[in-house]
C-alpha cells in the first residue's frame, strides 16, 4: 500500500456532525438562491426588459457554480469516506490492491472505490461459498464420526462368532471371509495410530484381497514384489495408503473386465519409499487421466461442481495424496499414468522413516 493511499485515508477521517450541520444548510441556501436568481432572470427577461439581463445571468451562473462546487466537494468527501471504509474492510478480509498512480485524484479515487467494491463483492461471494463448503464438509465429517462411534468391539465379536459358527457347521469359506473382515475392521478402525510399518500395510492389502476374492474368485491375482521382511517391517508409512488405491483397481480397472492382475512393487531408496501399484485393467484415456490428475492435485476436493457430482474415483486418491503431502510436504504424494485398455500405474512416494513420524500438534490442541 503506497503513501498516496495513506494520505487518502488520513483525509477520509469523518468530520463529525458539526461538519454535516454546516455543509447541508450552506448547499441548500446556495441552491435556493440559484433558483430565486433564475426566477428573477426570467422575470427580467419577459416582464422588466433586457437591460439588466447580463448582470442577472452572471449572478445566476456564479451562484449555481458555487452550489455545484460545494456539491462536488461533498461527493468527493463521500467517496473518500467510502474508500476508507472499503480499505478497512479489505484489510480485514484479505490483501488489497494498490491504488493506481499517475491519474487525477478524483479519477483515482473513483476507480479505486469501484474496483474494490467489485473485489469486495467477489470476496464476499467466495467467502459465502467457502463457508458453505466448509459447513458441508463439517457435516460430512460429523456424520463419519457418528458412524464410527458404533462400538467396534461389538463388530469384531459378531464377526468372530460368525467365524466360530461357520467352522462348527463346516463352511470354511464363510469362516475365512468373517476372519478377513474382522482383521480388516480391526486394522481400519482400531487406534493403531496414523502410521504402521510397510509390512503391516501390505498385510492389510492381502487381507483386503481375501475379502474381494469372495466376490471375484480367482479372477483376481495379486503380485507383491518387495525387499525382505526385515526392511519392510522396519520402516513406517501412513496407514490406509495402499488399500484405497487397490480398491480403485477393483472398482474402476476391473469393473467391466471382471478380473485381472494387480502388481505392487516396493522400492526403498536411501531417502524415499516408492510403491508402484499397477493393474492390467481398463486404464483411461488421456482426457480422463488429465482430469483425474488435476482433481487429486487440488488442495480441497470439490464435492459439487456446476451442479454435477464429480466422478467418485478421485476422492480416495485425492485423500491419499493430500494426506501424504500434509505429512511429508511437496515432492511426495501419488503419481498416475495410464493408457486406455492397457492398465494403470499409480506410484506412491514418501520419505523413509524408521520410527512413526510425530505429527506436529496444533496450538489449540497444546492449550
Amino acid at each position, binding site marked *: 500500500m503506497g503513501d498516496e493511499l495513506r494520505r487518502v485515508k488520513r483525509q477520509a477521517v469523518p468530520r463529525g456532525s458539526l461538519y454535516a450541520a454546516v455543509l447541508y444548510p450552506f448547499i441548500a441556501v446556495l441552491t435556493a438562491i440559484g433558483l430565486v436568481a433564475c426566477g428573477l432572470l426570467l422575470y427580467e427577461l419577459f416582464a422588466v426588459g433586457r437591460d439588466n439581463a447580463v448582470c442577472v445571468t452572471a449572478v445566476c451562473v456564479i451562484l449555481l457554480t458555487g452550489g455545484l462546487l460545494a456539491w462536488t466537494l461533498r461527493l468527493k468527501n463521500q467517496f473518500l469516506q467510502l474508500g476508507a471504509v472499503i480499505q478497512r474492510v479489505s484489510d480485514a478480509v484479505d490483501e488489497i490492491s494498490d491504488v493506481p498512480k499517475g491519474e487525477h485524484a478524483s479519477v483515482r479515487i473513483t476507480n479505486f472505490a469501484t474496483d474494490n467494491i467489485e473485489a469486495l463483492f467477489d470476496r464476499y461471494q467466495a467467502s459465502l461459498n467457502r463457508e458453505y463448503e466448509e459447513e458441508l464438509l463439517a457435516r460430512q465429517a460429523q456424520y463419519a464420526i457418528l458412524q464410527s462411534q458404533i462400538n467396534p468391539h461389538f463388530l469384531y465379536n459378531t464377526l468372530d462368532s460368525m467365524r466360530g459358527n461357520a467352522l462348527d457347521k463346516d463352511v470354511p469359506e464363510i469362516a475365512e471371509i468373517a476372519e478377513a473382515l474382522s482383521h480388516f475392521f480391526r486394522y481400519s478402525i482400531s487406534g493403531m495410530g496414523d502410521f504402521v510399518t510397510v509390512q503391516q500395510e501390505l498385510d492389510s492389502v492381502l487381507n483386503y484381497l481375501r475379502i474381494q476374492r469372495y466376490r471375484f474368485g480367482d479372477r483376481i491375482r495379486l503380485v507383491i514384489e518387495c*525387499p525382505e521382511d526385515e526392511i519392510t517391517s522396519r520402516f513406517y508409512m501412513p496407514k490406509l495408503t495402499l488399500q484405497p488405491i487397490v480398491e480403485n483397481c477393483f472398482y474402476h480397472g476391473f469393473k467391466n473386465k471382471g478380473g485381472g492382475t494387480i502388481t505392487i*512393487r516396493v522400492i526403498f531408496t536411501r531417502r524415499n519409499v516408492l510403491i508402484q501399484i499397477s493393474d492390467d485393467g481398463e486404464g483411461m484415456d488421456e482426457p480422463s487421466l488429465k482430469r483425474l490428475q488435476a482433481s487429486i492435485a487440488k488442495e480441497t476436493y470439490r464435492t459439487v461442481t456446476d451442479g454435477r457430482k464429480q466422478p467418485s474415483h478421485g476422492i480416495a486418491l485425492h485423500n491419499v495424496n493430500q494426506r501424504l503431502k500434509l505429512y511429508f510436504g511437496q515432492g511426495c504424494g501419488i*503419481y498416475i499414468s495410464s493408457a486406455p485398455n492397457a492398465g494403470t*500405474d499409480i506410484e506412491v512416494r514418501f520419505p523413509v522413516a524408521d520410527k512413526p513420524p510425530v505429527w506436529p500438534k496444533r496450538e489449540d490442541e497444546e492449550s
Partner: protein
Amino acid sequence: MIKSELLRMEQVSLPGYLDGFRLNIYQGEVLVLASLSGSQSEVIADILDGSVTPRDGLFWLDERPLKPREAATSYKAQLFRFREKSSLIPGMSIAENIFNIQTRHSKKNILVHPKENAQMTQIILNELGLSLHPDEPVGRLSAFAMHKIEIVKAVALGARLVIIEDVWGGFPDVHRSALFDLMKKLCDLGVAFLILTQRHEDFASVMDRIVIFHNGCNFRTLPGCEYRAGFVDRLLIGEHYIPTYESAPPDPAEPLPTREVLRISGLSCRHLKDLNLAVHVGEIVCVLDMQDRGQEELIRVLTEGGTYSGSIELNGVPFSPGERSGSPVNGVGAVSFQGGNTLFENLTWPENLALMSRRQLSDKTPLLGKGVLRYLQSEYRDELDGLAADRPLALSGATVYQRRKLTLLKWIISGPKLLLCSKPCSEGDVLLREITRSMLRKAADSGIAVLIASSNPMEALACADSIAVLSDGRIKAILEPAEFLANNPDVQRSIESVDDGIENQY
C-alpha cells in the same frame, strides 16, 4: 535391497513437447524410454544436458531437490550423451582419446605420463573384457569398436548416466550383444543408462525398466521382466495403427512370370566369395549376413561398381555397374534409408517425386502441373495419405512416416526393374517398419524385383520371400522364411515374443 536414486524429474512441461512428464533413474540401471518416430523424445536428453530449459518441473539429484535453474548444470556434470557422430578424435590413440580429454577437466592429470595413460587404459580395457590395444589409433577401428571406446571414455570422464539415442539400429545382433555385455559390466559399477529408442525390442535383453513415452507424457512403466514387445507396440501405436498391405493369393489361372531380372554369377570381391544369386520379377530376396559385411558390399558393387570379378546380368543383358548404376536410366533403383532420407528439404513433395519420375511422366502429363498431382494421387492414394494435391507442402511439414513413403515412392514411380534396399527396417519404430514392408511388398506385386541387404534376421523375415544366408562371404543357403525359422530356434523365440500381443489385439 535399498536402491540409490540418481536422478528424478516430476511434472516437467515444455510446450509442444512435454506435458507433465516424469522420470526417475536408479544407479546401475538400464532404463529404456520407448517412443514412436517423430515423438521428439530427444528433448528429454536436451533437458538433461542443459541445451533446453523446461517451462515447469521439479528436479532432484541423488534425492536432493534442485532449483530448476541449477538442475541443468547439475545434471550435465553427471551425464554423457552418446550421439550418432562420434566424439572421438580419429588421429589419436584409444588411450589419448580417453585420458587426454580428462586432463582438460582435471588439472591433476596434466602430469600423467603417456605410458601411464596407456597402462591405465589397458587396465580398464582388460577389466571390461575389451580386446583392444591402448595405442591403436581410433581412426582404424570399426564403428562398433568406436562405440565401445566412447562408452569407456564416458565412464573414465566420471559420467554416472550415459544417454544413448537410437544409434545401434544398423548393428548386427552379435555387435549389439557385445555392447550390452559392456553396459552390464558398467551397470555393476553403478553407471546408469538411459536409452531413448524407437526400437525397444532391440534392448529387451538388457533393460531393467521401460517407460512408454507418448504425447509428451508417460503412458506406462514396466519392469524388464514384464516387458512384451507386442504390448509395448500396441501402447505406442494406439489409434495410429493402420491396416497393412498383404499380397493377394496367387491366381492359378494366371501364374506369375518367373523371368530373371538379376543374375549374379561367381561374384567375388573383398568380403564376397563366388556369389551366385538370382532375383526374379515380383520377388523380394534378402541377402542376410549376420556379420554385417558381405551384404553391404554386394549393394555397393551393384550401385557403384568397383573392384570385383564375376558376371552380373540385368534382364538377361550383361550389366557393368558404374557410378550412376543406381538410377532410373538403368532400371535400377537404389533406396537409401541410413541417416534419415534422401529427399530435398527445400522442395515440395510433388517436386521431390518429379525429380525421379520426369522420364516416365513427361509423355503423359505436363510436369509439375495439376495433372501430375492428380495422377500421383490416384495411383498412390494409400502411399500419399495426408498429402493434399491442391496444397503441395514443403517437406518440413511432413511427418516421419510421410517422408519414408516419399523416399520409397520416388523410386517406385520411376518404374525400376530392380530395387536395391540396404537395411530398410533397421531404423524407426514399428509403424515405420510396417510402412516400409508394405510398400516393398506392393512394389514387388507390381512386378519390381527387390533385393534387400540386411544383418538382422527379423528384418529379413518381415520382408523377404527368400533369404540368402551369407557366412564368411559365401552363400550358405537360400531359404524360405519358414525354413529359415526352422533352422534358427533363437529367432523363432524372438519372433514369438514380438508377436505376443500385437497380433491378438488387432
